């Protein structure tokens, strides 16, 4: 049995269990709707879900791109200017020690209800795994390669560009995978704290109106998007950095 068919069977089994549970215990739909009601809601509200999803997707992707750029830049700074590392590292650690939920309301006050506060939340959540992974990769260049470069009378920045950076890419890629997995969470957390658009906002809103079926529909949309994003990024990274398996 392959992974796909096992996945489908597991999925259908869970749906069946859910349906049975709701019917057996006659759970009211404002507590737990049946899967059928959720799918119905998915279909009925497809336009709404799509437009709200677009907002969340844009926030996630922009947050992810900016987070990767910011994370890489921080790692490069730390490698190039060693003394900065000593000052930068505590700030980085503090930024990670504060729960995103605690700082997200502040970001909304500073950056407004629009997209920028959500992007900022996302960036804040994911730049650290990027920085840490890339920095580690840059520091752990195979000593043999550096010796070889030295005997070749290599120029320092050329060693950096042609050896140290490519050698750090597999490490950066694992940081990017982690970041991709948490990026949608960052966007949704940002939306929960204060927004007028997006899947997070829709979930909160439908929760208040007891439209639990719509809330589930939004949740499913978010899961599907998150999975698609993760697997696309994973596939892209494998294609772009084929040497990561042996490294």
């Amino acid at each position, binding site marked *: 049995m392959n992974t796909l068919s096992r996945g489908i069977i597991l999925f259908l089994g869970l749906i069946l269990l859910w349906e049975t549970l709701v019917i057996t215990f006659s759970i009211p739909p404002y507590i737990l709707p049946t899967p059928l009601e959720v799918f119905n809601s998915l279909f009925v509200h497809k336009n709404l879900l799509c437009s709200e999803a677009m907002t969340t997707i844009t926030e996630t992707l922009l947050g992810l791109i900016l987070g990767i750029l910011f994370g890489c830049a921080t790692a490069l700074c730390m490698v190039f200017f060693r003394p900065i590392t000593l000052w930068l590292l505590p700030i980085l650690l503090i930024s990670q020690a504060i729960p995103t939920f605690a700082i997200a309301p502040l970001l909304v006050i500073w950056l407004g209800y629009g997209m920028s506060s959500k992007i900022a939340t996302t960036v804040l959540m994911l730049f650290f795994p990027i920085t840490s992974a890339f920095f580690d990769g840059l520091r752990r260049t*195979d000593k043999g390669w550096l010796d070889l470069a030295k005997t070749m009378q290599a120029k320092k920045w050329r060693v950096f560009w042609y050896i140290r950076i490519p050698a750090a890419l597999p490490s950066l890629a694992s940081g990017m995978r982690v970041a991709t997995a948490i990026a949608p969470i960052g966007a949704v957390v940002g939306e929960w704290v204060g927004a007028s658009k997006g899947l997070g906002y829709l979930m909160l809103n439908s929760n208040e109106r007891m439209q639990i079926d719509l809330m589930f529909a939004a949740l499913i949309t978010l899961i599907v998007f998150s999975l698609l994003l993760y697997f696309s990024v994973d596939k892209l990274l494998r294609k772009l950095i084929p040497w990561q398996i042996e490294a």
Partner: protein
Amino acid sequence: MNHHAAPTIVVENASLKFENKTVFQDLNLTLQGGKLTCLLGASGVGKTSLLRLIAGLSEPDFKGNTAQAGNLISYMAQTDLLLPWLTVLDNVLLGSTLRGSTSPREKAHELLANVGLGSALNLFPRELSGGMRQRAALARTLIEDTNVVIMDEPFSALDAITRYNLQTLAAELLRDRTVFLVTHDPLEALRIADEIYIMSGSPASLHSPFTLKTKTPREISSEELLELQPILFTELLKASETTV
């Protein structure tokens, strides 16, 4: 390049301490110009440290003189050190890339053909066998076209037949250069060396070298090789007793 100019390298009074342990002290070694010198010895005796010293790869707490200053060297290690993100051709051209000089592409093609990789130019290292990878590393070493070549157990990770073929190839292509090759395989030394040193003891010292007269690479059945083999083995056995 004029290989007759291959320099003689003299190491004088070399001493090395590592974490308060003296690896070797007042070591003297002469690498004859245009000859291949092998260094034999047990693992951990300090062979690689001495090699790194001659290669100009910094070791802490080193004292002494080496006369290699000003001589460009090329270096080949036990692992091929091929960059996995570059093709075989680009790996061979790595030196010029890292120096920012023009790439001798035609020469790279020629050398890769010489080491039997003429049809593997655009393959990546992961697509090659161990022997092919080490041949690519040999081509990368040769393209540097330096008069001095330093090799650290370059064939030790290969199977016996691949190793034999590569020794033959290396001995032919490295002729008339000053080569320093560290190995733990006495047969390898007997096949391709002009001079053989044995390193032993703690702190390590060097025995007076064996000098071989016949042309390299020697056949397994070479008279000189067969004659020296038991003597060299006996010396190595004695050396291993003083090292432990």
